[in-house]
């Protein structure tokens, strides 16, 4: 069972998602420092665009192509867009819950959800480790177990 995605998988320069993770880490740090639900809504929107339309439509992807990639050599290899895109969807879930928390006054919920998103973004930025991708198999296993009842 796989997620239906039309056409051949899009290939992306793996340094793009990594750069986006660095920016995401910085934004989430500012959110935690200031408690700004509005900023977290903006980050959730960035996640939503990347997950829903593709990484190249995300503002971070645009910044990468416009300012960073021209300064780098060509990538050693391209990678499938689906794993980082799935991770963006996971990020969106946490950012949306966190924003809801901050904006409704449930600050503890905002902090907790943002903390999870920060952990995932930082692991990606610092170690190239895609937490959202790894959670995927566990999610499939859990869903199958529930399905068996």
């Amino acid at each position, binding site marked *: 069972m796989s997620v239906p995605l039309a056409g051949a998988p899009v290939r992306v320069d793996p340094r793009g998602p990594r750069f986006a993770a660095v920016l995401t880490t910085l934004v989430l740090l500012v959110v935690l420092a200031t408690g700004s639900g509005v900023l977290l809504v903006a980050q959730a929107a960035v996640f939503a665009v990347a997950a829903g339309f593709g990484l190249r439509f995300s503002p971070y992807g645009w910044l990468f192509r416009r300012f960073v990639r021209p300064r780098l050599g060509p990538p050693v290899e391209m990678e499938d867009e*689906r794993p980082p895109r*799935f991770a963006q969807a996971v990020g969106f879930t946490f950012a949306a819950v966190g924003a809801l928390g901050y904006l409704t006054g449930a600050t503890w919920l905002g902090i907790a959800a*943002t903390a999870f998103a920060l952990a995932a973004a930082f692991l990606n930025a610092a170690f190239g480790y895609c937490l959202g991708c790894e959670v*995927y198999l566990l999610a499939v*296993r859990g869903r199958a177990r529930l399905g068996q009842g």
Partner: protein
Amino acid sequence: MSGVADPTGLVVAAVVLLAATAFGLVRRSRDGRLRALRADGPLRLTARDLGQSLGDRATLVQFSTSFCATCPGTRRLLTEVADGTPGVRHVEIDAEERLDLVRRAEVMRTPTVLVLDRDGRVLRRASGPPTRAEVASALELATVPTAA
């Protein structure tokens, strides 16, 4: 007020960064290591389980999903090694389609790589992408005829 700077968020941020750094460092040191399992361990996979015949000397079984950033690289590596080593086959399993095997082998992440001997006994396993040197030495050990 949510707009007022609250030290709780900063403290949480610092804790998250420290914990994630520790996790990342531990993970990096363990990732892809092909750890030896007991030779008389319980797990044995047959050609029927895999849906493909076993290698005459050894089989590299790779569990993958489509949402796995490092699976394609591991596939390339293992295919190359298998092609260059007589009697060794590479078998890739779609973890989502074979949840039965995922449970039996207790696969928690992808890629997970199992090294099977000629009889399908699982000798070694790695969580995360293994290096070429690791795979080569694991195959050497798997294909050496045992003294017993």
